């Protein structure tokens, strides 16, 4: 369980690491939008190249990205199978067990596959190069304009940062309870179905109990230190946008514009 790659921060000091988190999140959002502009394979090729360059600048390995992809594989394969069977455009390629497979379906599935991979790749670059706390600071700032529309920007950011903070704690806790129950004869690998249900129950109940306890303790500790959600707060860490940040944002805008032009022309 220590090998979860999805969403893990990898320390480094590349240009990508040093980008302002607000700019980085915006760039990611723009690139994600760009992925959905229908430009055919040329557009995807462009975004792939951009993503791979970012990947190499950030000194992340391909194997790390593949690791991050692994938990999504099942979902992706399911999606592709359904897609290939359901979509009925173009001409029939082959027929298997009464299912007709159309060439349009094959192309469309391939597009979806590439899109998903690119989306995961880009978000992985963001999360791997940004400290979780910087990420939430960035989200808070980007949500700032929406406070006018009663969007609780600070509260959302606080919730996200608390959630992120407790992921390792919960993993540790899970491992500890697993070991404790293994000492009491629980076998998560072997055993009958009923025993397995019992085994999972013996894990989930203590985990729930301690999570609620932790939540309560944390809430009390925060209140004891005078935390008021909607109070005006200053920050220890100030975010500054530099010229390099602007340049990269402009570059991403140009890619997006290029994609739109391509979609219109091609």
């Amino acid at each position: 369980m220590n090998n979860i790659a999805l969403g893990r921060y990898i320390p480094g000091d590349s240009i990508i690491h040093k980008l302002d988190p607000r700019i980085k999140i915006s760039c990611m959002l723009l690139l994600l939008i760009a992925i959905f502009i229908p430009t055919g394979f040329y557009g995807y090729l462009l975004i792939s190249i951009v993503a791979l360059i970012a990947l190499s600048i950030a000194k992340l390995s391909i194997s790390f990205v593949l690791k991050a992809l692994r938990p999504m594989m099942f979902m992706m394969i399911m999606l592709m199978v359904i897609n290939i069977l359901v979509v009925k455009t173009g001409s029939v390629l082959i027929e298997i067990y009464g299912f007709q497979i159309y060439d349009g379906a094959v192309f469309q599935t391939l597009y979806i596959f590439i899109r998903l991979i690119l989306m995961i790749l880009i978000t992985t670059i963001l999360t791997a190069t940004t400290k979780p706390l910087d990420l939430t600071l960035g989200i808070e700032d980007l949500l700032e304009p929406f406070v006018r529309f009663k969007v609780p920007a600070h509260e959302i950011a606080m919730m996200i940062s608390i959630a992120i903070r407790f992921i390792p704690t919960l993993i540790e806790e899970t491992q500890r309870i697993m070991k404790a129950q293994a000492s009491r004869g629980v076998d998560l690998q072997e055993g009958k179905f009923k025993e397995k249900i019992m085994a999972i129950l013996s894990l989930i109940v203590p985990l729930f109990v301690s999570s609620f306890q932790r939540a309560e303790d944390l809430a009390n500790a925060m209140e004891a230190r005078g935390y008021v959600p909607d109070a005006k707060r200053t920050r220890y860490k100030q975010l500054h946008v530099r010229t390099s940040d602007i340049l990269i944002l402009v570059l991403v805008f140009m890619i997006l514009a290029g994609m739109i032009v391509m979609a219109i022309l091609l």
Partner: protein
Amino acid sequence: MPISFKEVTYTYSPNTPFAYEALKGVNVDFTEGKITAIIGSTGSGKTTLVQHLNALLLPTNGEVEILDRVIRANSKPKELKLLRQKVGLVFQFPEYQLFEETIIKDVCFGPLNFGVDQKTAIIKSKAMLRLVGIDSSYDERSPLELSGGQKRKVAIAGILAIDPQLLVLDEPVAGLDPQASKSMMNLFVELNKRYHKTILIVTHNMEHVLTYCDEVVVVDAGKVIKHVSTKVFFEDDRLLTELHITPPAIIKAKQALRSKGILIDDNVLSIDELAKAIAKVVNHE
């Protein structure tokens, strides 16, 4: 039957940037039928060491011999359940492992997992609950309603009900009040004396080591650096200073008396006994 470690190393998250070698060649041979204290500063590897005893962690290198089983590095051992029935491991803050609706069901959980029939499990569990000092009016209540100390007792009863030959306890009395810790420690002594269980206790409390334990194993920076009897351990001033251990008050008192030429018998281990011994010396003069 031996309980021994031969050149055991253990690395957490090997082959990653987060790799950490917690055990660096542990060699130790625990004595059967005794109460052994495992001491060492935080992060020295005590918890990692004890988790090898029921194969929750498997050695990265070296081998662990536990009763009739040998666990070697790089071999995937099977039938670990058999081992885990013989080695009862009580974790730090075991109250977090309670999950059943009623206390009696929770204590029965262990024995039932190890294939004991329902009836025997209940009898066994009730006996163990009484032994740790939880009376029968609690049996049908939820373990989550109990106080911290009571939860701890129920969790320990849950391990005792499995009836292990070797009982390993990781800081069993941490956070308990003095009265509760005293009765808990006395329970372990009783299990050792009456039921001949081998007991290993990870602890930071030197008073407990002195009063209740026969032997001391010192873990430091991932290695076992000393394995001696409690008596010898507390006489080794140099080692104690090296480990930044303040000896229990009684030891200091005896040393002070000795430096004034008053010799007190080695078996004197409590304040009451010391008072009597001093009275005897004074009356003689």
